[in-house]
């Protein structure tokens, strides 16, 4: 029997080789793929997030854990799709126009994936109209916009305004984040949520989409 506890620990430790091996074993034994995600990967990434908030983990440890989680997810995803298991929701994510930084954005994207979201990553330097287009085609529950630079902070507001102007504002929840962003700023520009770090972003994403689905 594949040891799901060991899989959870492998993700927490950022050991992608073990994560992949145990996932393969588990799937080979016909373990319910949704059970691996909700019983194992989600709690593992929760724990990684907690360690980050406790300042035992910093970005390197988070990235290694995210990679281990991702490799496991890659094996599980085809099975999940085959069984028609529901996802936590669809999310569109990107770095604001003018911003070429993607470390934080990638981290949040990985963590959202780990929390069972179907994530569509638009990349960096994403103009407002591209977000609008993605909202139309992907029909996400959630749009996440990030910025590392203070100079690109106004682009967050422009993106929200563009989604509003396209008449799509009520169809999605919008979250913003990145080093210079604060709750106050998020409120000022009319975002629905803000995550101080990747973990709180995922918690907020769950809250917002749960409310949205109700």
């Amino acid at each position, binding site marked *: 029997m594949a040891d799901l506890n060991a899989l959870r620990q492998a993700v927490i430790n950022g050991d992608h080789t073990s994560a992949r091996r145990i996932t393969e074993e588990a799937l080979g034994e016909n373990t319910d793929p949704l059970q691996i995600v909700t019983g194992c990967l989600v709690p593992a990434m929760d724990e990684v997030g907690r360690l980050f908030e406790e*300042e035992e*983990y*910093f*970005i*390197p*440890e988070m*990235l*290694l854990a995210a*990679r281990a989680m991702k490799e496991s997810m890659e094996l599980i995803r085809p099975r999940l799709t085959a069984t028609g298991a529901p996802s936590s929701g669809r999310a569109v994510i990107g770095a604001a*126009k*003018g*911003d*070429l*930084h993607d*470390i934080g954005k990638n981290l949040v994207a990985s963590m959202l994936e780990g929390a069972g979201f179907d994530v569509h990553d638009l990349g960096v*330097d994403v103009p407002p109209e591209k977000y609008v287009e993605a909202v139309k085609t992907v029909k996400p529950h959630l749009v996440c916009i990030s910025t590392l630079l*203070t*100079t*690109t*902070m*106004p*682009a967050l*507001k422009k993106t929200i305004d563009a989604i509003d102007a396209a008449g799509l504002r009520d169809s999605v929840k919008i979250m913003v984040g990145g*080093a*210079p962003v*604060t709750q*106050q*700023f998020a409120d*000022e*520009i009319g975002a629905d949520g803000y995550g101080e770090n990747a973990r709180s972003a995922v918690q907020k994403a769950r809250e917002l989409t749960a409310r949205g689905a109700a």
Partner: protein
Amino acid sequence: MNALFSELLASGPVVTDGAWGTLLYMSGLPMGDSPDAWNLTHADRVEKVARSYTEAGAQIVLTNTFGANRLTLKKHGLADRAAEINRAGVEISRRAAAGRARVFASIGPTGLMLMTGETSEDELDAAFEEQAEALAKGGADALVVETMLDPAEAASAVRAAKRTGLPVVACMTYSAGKKKDRTVMGTTPEQAVEVLTQAGADAIGSNCGQGVEGFIPICQRLHAASPLPIWIKANAGLPEMENGEVVYKTTPEQFAAHVKPLVEAGASFIGGCCGTNPEFIRAVRKTLAA
């Protein structure tokens, strides 16, 4: 201490310059464009920034070369012009300084992550070597490795800078953790001192990441861990949003009020980072002269 730093610091702490990016955006640099490319296309406007700091009393001005390594320039299709952009950057600051200030050339991070394989040690070493050599050829008095987050990348840049024979300042950005005393990679000031000193730094410091008040404990810890001169370039508080514009609320006077505590904490070089402008440097100079 090297001869240049001894000479500069002989009569007490020295004033450096303030932010460049914000001033360049105010001069019309489009968002998302490479600021460094302006050394070739808008040299007059870049020179104006450097001159505004020299005239404000900066004894050291930096260069518009923060992102002029080939890995960052590649994102703008300018990788092969790295050497040219760096040399031009130093020449512009030298013209602006006109002998009234020393020119310390800026080397920033690539923005690529080593640990996820976005770049490699070899690629970083080569990119920083190319940049450092070009800056030295342009006539820089010293090199400043700044805003570093990853100690491995910082060490690569410091080693490359050191090979030019010029004095090297090495700074990291502390903005993470409850006390904002870690880099986002988790590095503490003490760990930074160890890595940067081993790589050959002649001065150790911190720039960006938080408002000036947060730099006092960082400065104390750097100073306690290292006999080298300490370099501090602080932000004008945290950015806020007003009428669609990003503003920094710290005034030059509030900023300058932290100069004495910084000197007491061991700072030898003091200047500004994001949100500061020549008025801040004027205020710092006045405080130090008082």
